[in-house]
């Protein structure tokens, strides 16, 4: 975290000097007044104001920097084409010829990237309220994957019903299992539950008796 102590005739002047020196905007810093300072009488006993200016960590900017560094060092032809911020969720959209490599099988590489970015971006953030969530997407991949899982859920539910046997799906991440459970929660023919421990926890689709 970058910080700077600065003095001036008044608190405002000291703050302004510090901000200028750090090269940031006023809303990007926390200001701590160390000494108010006073004019004194006829220049006698005048005391300088002293402030400490701390640049607030900006998780979204950290995430963007790290993501672009990762893409560069991976030496893949993939670029960040869009960044959207909304309610503490930052969504990066990637695009490029090597996007497939970056997404990986069933999105495993994309999910790993997302996990690391979430940890790194929130590292300096001890305050839970200020935590942000990072989503990394590539050319609409997340939506396609969701549709694929929904289709799979319907198909396997039918199979469970027809064969009257439990169907155990592949291990999935929590958000993927949630998609399956949600699709089938009102299905009159099957129940769903999860079994096993992370990271090999699986959804089981079981016919209702």
């Amino acid at each position, binding site marked *: 975290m970058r910080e700077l102590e600065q003095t001036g005739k008044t608190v405002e002047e000291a703050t302004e000097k510090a901000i200028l020196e750090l090269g940031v905007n006023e809303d990007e810093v926390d200001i701590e007044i160390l000494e108010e300072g006073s004019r004194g009488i006829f220049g006698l006993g005048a005391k300088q104001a002293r402030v400490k200016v701390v640049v607030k960590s900006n998780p979204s900017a950290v995430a963007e920097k790290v993501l672009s560094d990762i893409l560069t060092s991976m030496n893949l032809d993939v670029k960040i084409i869009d960044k959207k911020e909304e309610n503490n969720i930052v969504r990066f959209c990637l695009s490029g010829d090597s996007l497939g490599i970056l997404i990986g099988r069933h999105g495993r590489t994309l999910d*790993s990237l997302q996990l690391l970015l979430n940890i790194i971006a929130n590292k300096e953030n001890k305050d839970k309220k200020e935590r942000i969530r990072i989503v990394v997407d590539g050319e609409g991949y997340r939506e396609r994957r969701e549709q694929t899982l929904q289709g799979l859920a319907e198909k396997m539910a039918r199979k469970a019903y027809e064969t009257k046997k439990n169907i155990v799906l592949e291990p999935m991440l929590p958000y993927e299992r949630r998609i399956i459970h949600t699709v089938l929660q009102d299905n009159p023919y099957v129940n769903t539950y999860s079994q096993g421990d992370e990271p090999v926890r699986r959804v089981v689709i079981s016919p209702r008796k």
Partner: protein
Amino acid sequence: MKQLLEMLAKSLVDHPEAVEVSQVEGERSIILEVKVAPDDMGKVIGKQGRIAQALRTIVKAAAVKEGKKVMVEIIQ
């Protein structure tokens, strides 16, 4: 690849200056050894090895183009 892993490890830990990555290159495989400060071990391994697994997945993706097998080992 070494640079990628080094950068990721340094971003995750509290003591980036203690991060060392060494690369042993064979004909078909590369072994990358990551060394971090003892109290940073948890930061690069994570609960049930989630972070370590994520690091391996990303490094492997970076190695796809080179057609080599990469192994990432975390040592103290």
